[in-house]
């Protein structure tokens, strides 16, 4: 019995014939990374409910870090057990794929999240409020900004330790997203990681209105794109009579065996396939932040608390590109000639718009937001290659990019003035003179973003462009190279500002971080340099992980 028929029966006949549902067979060991993280999240909720306030912070930080590290260990164990290559298969009744790309991306997401936890846990940057060290999150999320409740919460020294379990839930969703092997799991994973992110975005301690505005924008546009995705899923179901990736791919390729009589009139209707596929792509491209679905990116990146921005910019991109890759490579390869031109257009527009609009930005967080759009375009160039090389280059790029991003946003949290983080670029003038180390580190990240050789950014860019060129997309490479040149301009502009401009009289100062943020930045720099100088091991890893299971 095919999985396709099973899902169908679940939907149409479960009410009158419950006996027909076989006991689901779940391979718990193979799902262990996700289960560990979600389990830790549940424990975190319990800790939040039952522990005294002063214990919550240390317990939550420890629990989150241990949970993520254990999840990563589970990924490594699975990969060492051969699930990334020879034993790759589809688990949980066809819902989750355990294969190379899934494990590689899950490992990346877990590491990124682990580093992000460090920036979440930072409590030395914000000035002490009423005798208590506080972090970048609101004293009480539910309190109205500027209201009495907020003042009381601040006076009482409250902190929002809920962010840690919320983060874990988001990570849990992100782990499933690139591994989802049917459209419903995909949708659920999307919601599981999106909803916590909306909440996290709204929790900034300073400039709360901006933060809440960002969250509302993100939520509304995210809900909108979810609707697109869901509608697309419905149409694809109508087309194929199943929501599993393999089942849809079979119908696309014309190798389907049985057609469900209830759907006989729509099965194989190409209009449904094209529209449905396009709508699902829209949903995913929204999460990736590709033009023309990028509008939320700058506002959300700017408004969200900076540690959240860093986490979101890195991990969401990894998860969403993973899902996009699987969809295009597993479900729609038979439709290549239809989606490739469209994706070509999207990639070109994304690269150009991201790079060109970034030139005019005056806020460092918005600048990094547009730069992330341009990078989404570069990654799309690798996605379009439709070859194992393309997959592994995208995997490598995602890993390299996410650590640079995390590090860059971690540096942004350090540069502060009386109003909190000083994100206006003009205020960064002369930073290199005041704090040469911090400016130098940020310069390293900017050079990596710009793709200067000897940094991870260059290796990644080279890998995706190489895959694209070998896949025959030479014009795409040329556009990519030209927009890289434009992008280099604004990265360099920030370096000019930091090192060659005179410091302002009342410019921001660089706060001395605790070991948490220092560690996050140090890891970012280390990964950037190592992936630039000696990328072979990681390229091999990504190369081995380049095959999707069906």
């Amino acid at each position, binding site marked *: 019995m095919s999985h396709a028929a099973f899902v169908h029966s679940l939907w149409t006949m479960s009410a009158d014939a419950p006996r027909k549902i076989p006991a689901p067979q779940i391979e718990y060991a193979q799902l262990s990374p996700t289960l560990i993280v979600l389990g830790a999240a549940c424990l975190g909720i319990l800790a939040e409910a039952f522990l005294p306030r002063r214990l919550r912070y240390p317990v939550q930080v420890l629990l989150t870090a241990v949970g993520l590290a254990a999840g990563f260990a589970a990924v490594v164990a699975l990969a060492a057990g051969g699930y990334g290559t020879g034993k790759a298969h589809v688990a949980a009744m066809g819902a989750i794929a355990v294969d190379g790309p899934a494990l590689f991306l899950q490992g990346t997401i877990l590491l990124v999240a682990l580093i992000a936890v460090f920036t979440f846990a930072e409590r030395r940057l914000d000035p002490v409020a009423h005798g208590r060290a506080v972090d970048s999150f609101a004293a009480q999320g539910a309190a109205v900004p500027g209201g009495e409740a907020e003042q009381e919460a601040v006076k009482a020294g409250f902190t929002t330790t809920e962010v840690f379990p919320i983060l874990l839930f988001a990570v849990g969703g992100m782990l499933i997203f690139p591994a989802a092997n049917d459209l419903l799991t995909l949708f659920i994973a999307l919601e599981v990681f999106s909803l916590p992110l909306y909440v996290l975005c709204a929790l900034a301690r300073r400039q709360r209105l901006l933060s809440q505005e960002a969250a509302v924008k993100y939520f509304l546009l995210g809900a909108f794109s979810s609707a697109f995705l869901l509608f697309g899923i419905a149409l694809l179901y109508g087309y194929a009579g199943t929501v599993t990736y393999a089942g849809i791919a079979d119908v696309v390729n014309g190798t389907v065996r049985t057609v469900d009589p209830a759907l006989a009139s729509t099965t194989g209707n190409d209009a449904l396939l094209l529209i449905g596929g396009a709508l699902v792509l829209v949903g995913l491209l929204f999460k990736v932040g590709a033009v023309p679905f990028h509008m939320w990116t700058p506002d959300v990146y700017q408004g969200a608390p900076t540690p959240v921005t860093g986490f979101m910019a890195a991990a969401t991109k990894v998860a969403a590109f993973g899902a996009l890759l699987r969809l295009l490579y597993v479900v729609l390869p038979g439709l290549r000639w239809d989606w490739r031109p469209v994706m070509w257009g999207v990639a070109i527009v994304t690269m150009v718009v991201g790079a060109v609009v970034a030139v005019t930005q005056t806020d460092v967080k918005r600048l990094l937001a547009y730069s992330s759009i341009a990078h989404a375009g570069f990654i799309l160039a690798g996605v379009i290659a439709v070859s194992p090389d393309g997959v592994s280059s995208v995997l490598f790029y995602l890993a390299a990019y996410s650590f640079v991003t995390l590090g860059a946003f971690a540096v942004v949290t350090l540069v502060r003035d009386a109003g909190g983080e000083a994100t206006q670029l003009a205020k960064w003038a002369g930073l290199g003179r*005041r*704090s040469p180390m911090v400016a130098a580190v940020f310069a390293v990240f900017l050079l990596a973003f710009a793709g200067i*050789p*000897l940094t991870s950014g260059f290796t990644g860019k080279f890998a995706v*462009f*190489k895959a694209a*060129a070998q896949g025959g997309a030479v014009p795409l490479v040329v556009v990519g190279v030209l927009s*890289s*040149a434009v992008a280099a301009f604004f990265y360099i502009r920030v370096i000019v500002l930091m090192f060659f401009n005179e410091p302002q009289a009342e410019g921001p100062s660089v706060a001395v971080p605790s070991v948490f943020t220092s560690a996050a930045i140090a890891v970012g720099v280390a990964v950037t340099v190592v992936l630039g100088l000696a990328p072979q091991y990681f390229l*091999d890893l990504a190369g081995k992980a380049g095959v999707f299971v069906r």
Partner: protein
Amino acid sequence: MSFPLLTVTAAVPAAGAVATAAVPAARRAAAKWLALAFSLATLVLAAVQLARFDPDSGKPFQLTESHAWIKSFGVRYDLGVDGIAVVLIALTALLVPFVILAGWHDADPLEEAEPNRRWRPTQGFFALILLVEAMVVISFEATDVFLFYIFFEAMLIPVYFLVGGFGDRAGARSEEETAARRSYAAVKFLLYNLAGGLIMMAAVIGLYAVTAHQLGTGTFSLTEIVQARADGRLQFATVTERALFLGFFFAFAVKAPLWPLHTWLPGAMGEATAPVAVLITAVVDKVGTFAMLRFCLQLFPEASKWATPVIVVLSVIGILYGALLAVAQKDIKRLIAYASISHFGFIVLGIFAMTTQGQGGATLYMVNHGISTAALMLVAGFLISRRGSRLIADYGGVQKVAPVLAGTFMVGGLATLSLPGLAPFVSEFLVLVGTFSRYPAAGIVATLGIVLAALYVLVLYQRTMTGPVKDEVRGMPDLRVRELVVVGPLIALLLFLGVYPKPLTKIIDPAVGHTMSQVHRTDPKPDVPANDVEAAK
């Protein structure tokens, strides 16, 4: 395994950069001496390279090292030197100690009591110079296209910081104004070169795609690609080869710089301190012309031949344009910059004349231009630092006040205009002879460049050094011992190579012959009437 001489030659200045940067803020003098020591050690290593290099061995590359690096991209850590590279490495290693000595006080902080102890501009300045040296040396040594590209591109960053961070303080009304002009020049330099480099990156990827498609495994190894082409295993489609050639050539032409891609050079040289300006024109830019010889010609011989007429025209335009603009300059350093543009025209012309004399002359020109520009520019820097102005009109009668300074300036200037007896004459003559035998018209027009050179150099000397002594110039001190140590050896070298260039040509010529054979070009037969030949017999 033999001693990895080439790696060590590049690693020593790199290690020196790290060591210099690590010197504590208060110990500025120690940082300078440390940097000088490391640059001298590099010079010794370069001399060892020259000594161990056998020009007549017949092997294209010597002292080779080969290690796997990034297997997924087919990239190898392949080093090797031919006669051209080994001479240019020696030039680099020779000039950097002078650059360091000449810039001894250029990066001292303005006010002594700098409160911030982490801000260490002096250490940074010398560390960056050594870093540039390391990257230049390894790009001369790399025989893997990817390896070369990485350092070709990465070297922009330290140069950028040198130009933008440590500008010439002369002739500006305020610190802000110099900072603004300087960062403009630095950004222009970086964007031009980065754009060139990125376009080259597309071509590098294209090269990989072609080799991967035809050879099964992609490779960047110069020797392997050349070999595969010779065997017929690798054949470029005409359009592909031309596109790839243009991608490579564009980057090198920006770096060299060739007209009309030259406009970053006068700004960068004008705003940088004189030693950094020397580092840019005499050392960094040579990587561009060197790469034309090593990569453009050897990887894409057919496309090189196809592009030759256009490139010859561009370089002749560059020769005249640079010289004409030099005549019109009011600023001493910009004048030298335009003179360099003119000279780079000669170098490119020599390379693409595709004759033994032309290419041998061009290589020799790279060395001589490095030395002569260094001499002229450094003396000009000493002069400017005394008066605090870069404008020619602010000077007059210096030779009466500071005769040694004026004398060395004269020799540097005469070398720049290729006076017979000084080194550049030999190379310029060879380039013109080499060009004339294939492109007589280009050779004739290019000769005008020499006439213009005499004009701009002599007028410069006349206006600054002769005539009545201006008030501001009165009391100007003559060259100090440190400055004499810088200029003296350079002038001695100009004289020596002007009279006896054989030690260099002996090393260069076999390598040029090899390059010529890669392009399947032979020298045109001398056009001698038949009966003369008979008579001679």
